[in-house]
């Protein structure tokens, strides 16, 4: 290497040393400057904080710091940096080499020397070139492995670095610990030329200062004060974004702390504390928005069976009360977008929510009572806190209720008459099933049943919560035998399909089929009581009659004064008649009951039943308004204490009383006769029943397997019963005979005796005894044979009895008809005689002696009429065919005859003639009524006109009218033939009209059948008009309508009578008050109102009240409903 190369190498290596030196100097200088500057700043801040420099002080301080920073930078950083950048002159190679030599021992001065050799261009001239080269070569050799840069001193750098770090840390620490103070001081220093107030004499330590809170959280603020007592401390706060602060004075406690509580904070809030104008640090409460339920909407879908509508609860009402089985749907809207959510139930069950953005939903079926809360988690995973706990409550579905309104007691029934049940059922939501349960609990022949048999009953329409259920229970299928007892009730099930239908049963009643003996015994008892009652009443009436005669005697003369004793007697008399009347009323009630029972048990023939009904009607008429009026007048006369008034009232009363008393007599006699007919019916019925039993026994005997001893013994027992019935029949026939003997002329005594003899001769009782014995001895063939024999004997007996019954009726009818025919003839004779007398009277001269003859003849006629009247009165004791209307006509005739006699005495020819004419008219009227009644009896086959007769004749008329209607419509145009035919039909129509009028008259004379037919006068008018239209050839649509109306009315009248015929009270009578339960509240008109009340009640019940309150609520709404009903 040449010298130049060596020099370059040294220079390069020294330049590297210098670069390193400068770099180290920059780093060191920076660290040093930083540490020094930070220290100075800290000192300045501390000084400012403590001293609180003035503007001038702070200006000096500031610029000092600036100058310091500048100086330090220039000196300690800029200079080495300039050298490094070779902007400034740094060390020369020699100086560097000197440093290197100084620091690297082996180098020493050699490097400097070498440089000097190299630098001095003339060295070679001075020194040997070789020597120079050798020296340089040595140097190079020695220094080749030495790193000159290692000579750079870095010893001070770590220290200054540590100083810098210490200064920096001190700075940070002080700022962190006293941010207000240091930042304040820094602020003031930076704004050195601004004036600042004096430093605070106290300081606030605020907790929690700034922090994050949950939205809605309440934040308590606690302030501790250091330094002087600040006096009143306030807090200023505002929502972020607001300009103005709100103020509140803090509350001081005993420990020198101040408190404030922020209400639920929903938005980020800034605040600071201040006192005496000194403001503390600013703090911020930053609100973190947790997810929460913004809107909860619950929909309740009640179980279908309840029929309740879907109900949406008010928003954010989370408590649910619903029927078991209701579906509950939750629709939730959260405050923010959700990630997940759930409904946590109190029994640890969790129901995840379906999420859609900020909405969530879920649904489940309410089956038990629990509580729940809703948990939400937002998309950031932040969960809701402190959820509200809601309750799920089950509204109880009350059990149904059923009441049997009819029957409402144990009852006796007939074997075929259906039992009319009326059950009232109620429930809160409806019904699913209703049934009738029954079982045989007592029987002579069967073992009591263990289990009930059920019959489904019809249910009201779905949705009905209260209904009256009528049911016609046909018990014929139960094949009851007398003395069987059936226990029964009605059971209702509600429609709760969720918990299973609940049921309730009605009261348990029993029905019993009484034996025929019981029915007849009851009838006998009724008869005896009625007859006894009537006899008592009659006796009382007769006694009262005597007293009345005495009283009449005492007030007979106009001169007689009315004494208080007379008044007393009159009062007693009225009282007695009142008692008689009351007794007859009770007899009437007894007869009603008796007839009702017998009719129900079908032990009466239709003819006898009809007679009983006539009797009932007659008894109704006994308490006539006239008699009541007479009693009233007598009472008034007594109060007036006027002899004249009393006398007059007595006369009136006398007449009415006689009618009343005679009515009792007549009723009594008729009842006795009817009782005999009933007894005959009874004998016939007993025989038929016995035969039926015997036939069944015979059949069963034939069917019984050989050797079945138990069965045979059972049959023997039943045979014994038939035998007992036979004995009862014998006794009953004996009794019947005794009763018939009271009316020997009317009753078929011979027939009855004959029947009894045959019964004895056939030794039916012995045969039955023998049958029983054969059965016990297991001889069924012999028993069967004898049973056949017994049946034949019974059949014969039955024939006799029926024949006797028929003969009795025919006999009675014949006798009655004969008697009436005689009366009719007599009346007609009398009418003719009256006519003759009238003619004679008209011819009489004023001074004629024949006035007296005529008068005597009139008297004879009147006497004869009296005889006829007596005959009819006697006949009226035996038949209903003699009506009061006949009596009235005869009475009118008698009155006219009497008047005529008086006129003849007075020689008043004209008056006598007129009165005789009147008498004749009344006699004809009476005769007409008798004839009508006879026609009715003959056509109806009964004692009077009777329903049967009325029916038949109405039917005939309807048929005739139908024929006329058809024929008249089939006639087209009006050819001469058709006109002739129309004329014939008109004639026929006229005949129908006459027949109808005749029928109406007869019905009127037969008493209240008139009412049964209705008013026929309009129909008769229609018929006349139809007839006129036909005759005049004016047959038009209106005529057709009239024809239809006529036919319709005739058919209706027929139907009415037929319908009544099935009823026990066929007659038209005043109504008897009936007690029954009110129909249910209106649902049609008040439906909406009721629904509203029901909804309100439901809502109230869902509020979750205690059971007893729920009952009160129900009651309250029931009362409201009642009031609503009343208001409508």
């Amino acid at each position, binding site marked *: 290497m040449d010298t130049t190369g060596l020099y370059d190498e040294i220079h390069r290596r020294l330049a590297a040393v210098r670069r390193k030196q400068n770099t180290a100097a920059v780093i060191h200088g920076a660290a040093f400057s930083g540490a020094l500057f930070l220290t100075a700043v800290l000192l300045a801040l501390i000084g400012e904080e403590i001293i609180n420099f003035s503007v001038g002080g702070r200006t000096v301080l500031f610029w000092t710091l600036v100058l310091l920073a500048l100086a330090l930078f220039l000196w300690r950083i800029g200079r080495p940096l300039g050298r490094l950048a070779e902007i400034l002159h740094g060390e020369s190679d020699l100086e560097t080499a000197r440093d290197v030599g100084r620091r690297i021992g082996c180098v020493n001065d050699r490097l400097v020397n070498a440089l000097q050799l190299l630098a001095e261009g003339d060295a070679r001239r001075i020194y040997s070139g070789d020597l120079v080269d050798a020296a340089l070569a040595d140097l190079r050799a020695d220094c080749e492995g030495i790193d000159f840069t290692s000579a750079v001193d870095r010893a001070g750098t770590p220290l200054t670095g540590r100083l810098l770090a210490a200064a920096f840390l001190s700075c940070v620490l002080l700022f962190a610990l006293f941010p207000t103070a240091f930042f304040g001081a820094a602020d003031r220093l930076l704004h050195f030329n601004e004036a600042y107030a004096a430093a605070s004499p106290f300081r606030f330590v605020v907790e929690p200062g700034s922090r994050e809170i949950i939205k809605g959280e309440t934040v308590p603020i606690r302030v501790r004060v250091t330094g002087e007592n600040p006096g009143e401390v306030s807090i200023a706060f505002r929502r972020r974004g607001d300009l103005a602060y709100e103020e509140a004075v803090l509350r001081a406690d005993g420990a020198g702390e101040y408190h404030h509580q922020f209400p639920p904070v929903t938005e980020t809030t800034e605040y600071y504390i201040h006192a005496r104008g000194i403001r503390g640090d600013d703090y911020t409460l930053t609100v973190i928005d947790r997810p929460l339920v913004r809107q909860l909407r619950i929909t309740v879908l009640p179980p279908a069976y309840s029929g309740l509508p879907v109900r949406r609860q008010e928003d954010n009402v989370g408590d649910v009360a619903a029927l078991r089985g209701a579906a509950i749907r939750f629709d939730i809207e959260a405050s923010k977008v959700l990630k997940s959510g759930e409904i946590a139930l109190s029994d640890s069950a969790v129901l995840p929510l379906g999420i859609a953005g900020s909405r969530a939903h879920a649904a489940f079926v309410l089956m038990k009572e629990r509580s729940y809360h809703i948990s939400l988690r937002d998309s950031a995973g932040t969960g809701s806190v402190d959820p509200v706990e809601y309750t799920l409550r089950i509204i109880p579905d009350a059990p149904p209720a059923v009441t049997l309104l009819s029957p409402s007691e144990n009852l006796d029934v007939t074997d075929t008459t259906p039992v009319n049940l009326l059950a009232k059922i109620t429930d809160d939501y409806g019904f699913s099933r209703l049934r009738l349960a029954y079982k045989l609990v007592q029987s002579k022949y069967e073992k009591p049943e263990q289990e009930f048999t059920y019959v489904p009953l019809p249910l009201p329409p779905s949705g009905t919560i209260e209904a009256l259920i009528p049911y016609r229970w046909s018990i014929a299928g139960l094949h009851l035998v007398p003395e069987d007892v059936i226990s029964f009730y009605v059971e209702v099930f509600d429609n709760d399909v969720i918990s299973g239908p609940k049921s309730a049963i009605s009261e348990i009643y029993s029905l019993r089929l009484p034996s025929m003996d019981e029915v007849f015994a009851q009838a006998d008892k009724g008869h005896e009581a009625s007859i006894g009652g009537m006899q008592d009443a009659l006796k009382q009436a007769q006694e009262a009659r005597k007293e009345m005669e005495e009283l009449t005697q005492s007030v007979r003369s106009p001169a007689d004064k009315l004494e208080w004793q007379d008044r007393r007697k009159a009062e007693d008399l009225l009282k007695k008649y009142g008692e008689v009347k009351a007794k007859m009323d009770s007899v009437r009630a007894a007869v009603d009951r008796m007839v009702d029972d017998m009719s129900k048990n079908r032990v009466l023939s239709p003819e006898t039943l009809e007679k009983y009904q006539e009797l009932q009607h007659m008894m109704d*008429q006994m308490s006539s*308004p006239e008699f009541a009026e007479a009693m009233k007048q007598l009472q008034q006369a007594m109060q007036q204490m006027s002899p004249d008034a009393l006398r007059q009232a007595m006369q009136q009363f006398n007449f009415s009383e006689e009618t009343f008393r005679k009515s009792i007599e007549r009723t009594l006699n008729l009842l006795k006769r009817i009782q005999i007919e009933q007894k005959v019916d009874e004998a016939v019925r007993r025989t038929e029943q016995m035969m039926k039993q015997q036939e069944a026994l015979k059949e069963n005997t034939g069917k019984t397997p050989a050797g079945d001893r138990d069965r045979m013994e059972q049959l023997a027992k039943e045979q014994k019963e038939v035998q007992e019935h036979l004995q009862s029949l014998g006794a009953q026939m004996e009794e019947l005979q005794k009763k018939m003997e009271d009316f020997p002329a009317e009753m078929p005594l011979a027939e009855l005796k004959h029947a009894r003899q045959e019964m004895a001769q056939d030794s039916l009782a012995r045969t039955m005894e023998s049958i029983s014995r054969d059965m016990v001895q297991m001889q069924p063939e012999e028993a069967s044979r004898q049973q056949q024999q017994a049946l034949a004997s019974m059949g014969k007996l039955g024939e006799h009895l029926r024949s006797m019954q028929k003969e009795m009726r025919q006999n009675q009818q014949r006798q009655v008809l004969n008697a009436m025919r005689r009366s009719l003839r007599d009346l007609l004779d009398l009418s003719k005689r009256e006519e003759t007398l009238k003619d004679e009277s008209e011819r009489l001269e004023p001074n004629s002696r024949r006035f007296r003859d005529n008068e005597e003849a009139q008297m004879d006629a009147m006497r004869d009429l009296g005889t006829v009247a007596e005959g009819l009165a006697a006949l009226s004791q035996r038949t209903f065919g003699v009506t009061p209307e006949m009596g009235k006509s005869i009475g009118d005739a008698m009155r006219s005859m009497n008047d005529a006699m008086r006129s003849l005495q007075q020689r008043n020819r004209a008056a006598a003639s007129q009165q005789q004419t009147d008498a004749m008219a009344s006699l004809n009227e009476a005769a007409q009524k008798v004839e009508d009644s006879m026609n009715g009896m003959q056509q109806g086959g009964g004692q009077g006109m009777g329903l049967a007769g009325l029916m038949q004749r109405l039917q005939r008329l309807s048929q005739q009218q139908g024929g006329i209607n058809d024929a008249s419509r089939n006639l087209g145009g009006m050819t001469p033939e058709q006109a002739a035919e129309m004329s014939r039909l008109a004639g026929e129509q006229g005949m129908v009209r006459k027949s109808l009028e005749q029928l109406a008259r007869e019905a009127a004379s037969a008493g*209240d059948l008139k*009412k049964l037919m*209705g*008013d026929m006068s*309009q*129909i008769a008018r229609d018929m006349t008009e139809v007839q006129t239209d036909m005759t005049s050839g004016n047959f038009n649509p209106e005529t057709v*309508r009239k024809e*239809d*109306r*006529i*036919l*319709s*009315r005739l*058919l*209706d*009248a027929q*139907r*009415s009578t037929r*319908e*009544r015929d099935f*009823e*026990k*009270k066929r007659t*038209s*009578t*005043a*109504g*008897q*008050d*009936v*007690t*029954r339960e*009110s*129909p*249910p*509240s*209106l*649902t*049609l*008109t008040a439906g909406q109102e009721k629904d509203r009340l029901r909804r309100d009640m439901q809502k109230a019940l869902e509020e979750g009240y205690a059971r007893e309150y729920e009952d009160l609520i129900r009651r309250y709404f029931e009362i409201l409903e*009642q009031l609503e*009903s*009343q*208001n*409508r």
Partner: protein
Amino acid sequence: MKKVQHLFLALLIGTGVSLAQSGTPASAFAITRLKYAGGGDWYNDPSSEVNLLTFVHNATGIDTDPRYQFVDIGDDALFTHPFLFMTGHGNIAFSETDARRLRMYLENGGFLYADDDYGMDKPFRREIRKVLPGEELVELPFSYGLYHCQFEFPSGVPKTHEHNGKPPQGFGIFLHGRLVVYYTYESNPSDGWADPDVHGDPEDKRQEALRFGTNLVVWVLTH
């Protein structure tokens, strides 16, 4: 001239008679018998309305016109009668036109009282269905105001006359909450309104029926 004078006099006398006969003011309340077709005796017991209206006047002071009057359904005057009454024993037939007119009458403030005098039940129910299709006869509860508005009837309609021994029932049809048809079955109050000798009902029954009729009139006039 003399003829003219005679004619004038005749007219004057006729008018005078007519005025004398119509002494009751036109505003007086009247009950009108409904004349119907079908054959039933719509005309029976003509004394019923007369007695009832007299009783109503005496009991309440309501100005009544106690006359028997009737109207045919087809008559234009139908709509001038506020209270129609129908009764009878037999068939009833409303033609389509009749039914339509009667419906219009009832919908426009009219009232119909029907009293089954026996045998009218089936035809009435059938025909009233033609008049008001879809409307049902509902039995009125005992608490209904008609039974309490003037006289007390705690058990509802009274049993004036025996028919089939069933309990008496009062049914109604309502239009827009107003009772437009009232029907009594197994009760027959109008028999009790008739003259005493027509049916021979006891006086207490008659009085009861008249009191009930008064309630009916009062109810119709006030509702």
